[in-house]
């Protein structure tokens, strides 16, 4: 192909990048805060997970999708999702093992007086991990539509 002049080079905006860079640690902190405080405020694992996912999307919009795809390892996403499921299942089934119902937190009270609260937090964290990884995964998948997926990310 003999087109010498490439279409105008697109450069990411410094302003957007810097703003996102400054804001992102606080947004992620807020996401985790929401995850940990599901019991006594509006929020919880689902909302926190979505905000955490939004942090990654924000980076992707500022820095470019491909750059972010390289940064976010597919295996990390897969590990997050499966780790979340495992936490959820372990806490839930643990209660059954102790003679209660699925996710019956007060079965754990013999360990420590506030154990049921920690149980809830752990489950929220698990849900948050699942939601965040699914949100990021879906986003990268949708953004990569039409691109050749290289490597063996298929099993994720």
């Amino acid at each position: 192909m003999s087109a010498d002049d490439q279409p105008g080079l697109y450069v990411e905006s410094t302003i957007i990048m810097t703003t996102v860079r400054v804001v992102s640690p606080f947004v992620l902190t807020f996401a985790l805060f929401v995850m940990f405080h599901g019991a006594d405020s509006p929020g919880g694992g689902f909302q926190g997970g979505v905000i955490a996912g939004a942090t990654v999307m924000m980076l992707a919009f500022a820095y470019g999708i491909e750059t972010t795809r390289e940064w976010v390892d597919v295996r990390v996403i897969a590990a997050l999702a499966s780790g979340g499921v495992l936490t959820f299942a372990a806490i839930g089934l643990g209660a059954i093992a102790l003679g209660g119902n699925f996710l019956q937190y007060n079965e754990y009270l013999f360990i420590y007086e506030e154990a049921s609260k920690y149980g809830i937090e752990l489950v929220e964290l698990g849900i948050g991990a699942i939601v965040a990884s699914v949100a990021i995964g879906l986003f990268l998948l949708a953004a990569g539509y039409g691109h050749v997926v290289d490597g063996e990310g298929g099993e994720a």
Partner: protein
Amino acid sequence: MVEFETALLAVAGAFVVFAVVALYRVFAGPTTFDRIIAVNVVGTNTVIAIALVAGAFDQSVFLDIALVYALLNFLLSIAFSKFTVERGGVL
């Protein structure tokens, strides 16, 4: 005491009215950019209205919602700037 909270609610109502006024631009366009900048204003006004309601009822949990809404509003704008600019490119 009652007066003061009513005043805050009234201001919140005013912001909602302004959001509705800005909706005219979302409707009229003419370009997508005009619509998005108007949506951004609607979003900002929504955040302020939620925050004012939080102040009026002294409900700090509403502030969390406003914070998330502000985040989404920002996300919308930069996402949009990406989607229009990079057709045939990165997206």
